């Protein structure tokens, strides 16, 4: 039994030695023989594929950049529009002394706000009424309330849902011009318009 196994081992070893040298030259023969044409072709092939890959990457990047730019551009455009609309919306209206009647000249300003509110159905605003320092401190709270309500009624009568407009009054407590002359008083007798909700992206009317 021991003898048989030794023989078997010896036979396997012989076979292995015989097989190895015979195979080796065949497998290495082709590349080992330099051929200028084939080398050049290979080099070109590699270079071509690299260039193609680079071009593809560049194109991809360019497309990406363009896409980003387009998004940014459109965002900026939207922002500009929103800011422009916000500025329009914030335009003050003014009142005569001890009056809460919308002036003829201010009707256009309010019409603009009507259009903005119509173009942006999610928009909700707050109108605050203000007075100059000449009247009575406490009466001015009632007067400012009348002024805010006057603007709201104008907007509502032009088709804006009244529930989208809140009114408050600050009387003479928040002057925008601290002066004590006719010019300051005229500036301080006003309605302010501020956005409560829905003002992130506003459409131009």
């Amino acid at each position, binding site marked *: 039994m021991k003898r048989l196994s030794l023989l078997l081992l010896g036979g396997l070893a012989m076979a292995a030695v015989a097989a190895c040298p015979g195979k080796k030259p065949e497998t290495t023969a082709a590349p080992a023989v330099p051929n200028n044409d084939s080398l050049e072709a290979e080099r070109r092939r590699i270079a071509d594929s690299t260039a193609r890959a680079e071009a593809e990457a560049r194109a991809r990047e360019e497309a990406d950049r363009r896409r980003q730019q387009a998004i940014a551009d459109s965002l900026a455009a939207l922002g500009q529009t929103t800011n422009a609309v916000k500025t329009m919306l914030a335009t003050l209206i003014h009142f005569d002394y001890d009056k809460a009647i919308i002036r003829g000249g201010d009707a256009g300003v309010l019409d603009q706000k009507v259009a903005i509110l119509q173009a942006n159905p999610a928009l909700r605003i*707050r109108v605050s009424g203000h007075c100059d320092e000449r009247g009575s401190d*406490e*009466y001015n*709270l009632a007067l400012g309330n009348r002024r805010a309500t006057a603007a709201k009624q104008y907007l509502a009568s032009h088709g804006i849902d009244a529930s989208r407009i809140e*009114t*408050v009054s600050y009387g003479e407590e928040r002057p925008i011009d601290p002066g004590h002359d006719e010019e300051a008083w005229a500036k301080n007798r006003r309605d302010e318009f501020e956005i409560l909700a829905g003002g992130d992206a506003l459409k131009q009317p």
Partner: protein
Amino acid sequence: MTRALALAALSLAVVAPVRLTAQDTSAVDRGVRIGILYRPGVRPGIVVLTGRAPGLDSLRTIMARDIDYSDRFELITLPGSDSIRLAAAPGARPAAGTGTGKTGGGATSAAGLNYPLYQALGADFAVAVAPAAGDSIVVTVHDVAGGAVRRELRSRLPPLTDPGFRMAVHRLSDRVLEGTLGAPGIAATRVLFVMDGKVYVIDQDGADRRLVSSTDHGAMSPAWAQDGRRFSYMEFWQGHGRLFVQDVASGKRAPVPTTGQALDFTPAFSPDGKTLAFSRAIEEGTDVYTVNIKDGCCLQRLTVGRFYDNLSPTYSPDGQRIAFVSTRPGLPQIYVMAADGTDQQLFAPFDYGATGSSNAPEWSPDGQAVAFHRDVAGTLQVFVLDVRTRAVRQLTSVGRNEDPTWAPDSRHMAFVSDRSGYRQLWIIDLETGRIRPLLQQSGARLPAWSPRLPETAASTP
């Protein structure tokens, strides 16, 4: 005959009560008296004396000023100050023991006064302040004309450094006024006002100004409860007006139920302290409401304006009526109604188309008058309405004068005036026309004069 009648009528007119007839005619500085009906000889003269005891100087200074500010006396300054009294004292007989029957204060209060000398100086009364047993003091009120002690007032004062010292002296001053003329004083009172959106309080003599409410929310329209233990005011909360009631002693405040969801402003306590009337601005307009602050319930609407505003309620002292501002004639004027909102009618007459806006009414504590301000030629002036006759009288004419508030004696009034060049708080005596600045600081407004303050509310502000 007709001439005699005319004369009789004239003398009657002269003799008729001169209540509330003084006119504020010019801007004057502290301590200068003015007024067309001011007659110096009419008021009793008084002299305030003090013993040579440490710490009594400030007491005498405060008391002398209180007596002066009562505008009921001629305060006499002795030439050479104490020297006259000291020179006169040794030979004089003690008067206290016999005058009042009290003997305990003999060592201090009964230092005899040279009555004829004080009489010669024009004094009808002399007030002597002296230390007594323990840490108390005794104030002796001498009736100079009668040559006797009228009254002895004993008091234990807190130390000079105690925050309650000044108010304790004010209280004593009011007792002196009661002991001499039988008239209740206004020394132990304070005035609430607004400056820079915060509520402050100041003693009626201009001392001891303190902040009582400060938040980021602008405050307006402080108002006292009649017990002097609470006050109310409004604060802006995100465009709404919320009312608060604050306890004087603890400084704690609580929002008034049902307020703060709209623009609620100008609170006014009913005299019994159970109800708060106020103005509420909603889209429909501004109207007068009441709320039960005792139970925190029962909002009631007293006026329904719709096309005009109703605001600034003020209760009559009997609680039966409310004066308020209404714009129903086209511009604000003073109206009155029953406390339940019925029987609304014009209160202060005006000339349609000629009289300017009238605002900020406050009913006097004696119920006889309502003070307010009215637009006169583009500026504001303080007016007084006689409740019985409904006659309206212009009180001020120098500069812009607004937001009058009555002292509890119904003859003094604090108001805002720019007569000195900037807006500040002033006090006027309606009988003599004398005015004095209460606070020489710009921006103070919306004053509210307290009732006579109870001991507990005053001691720990």
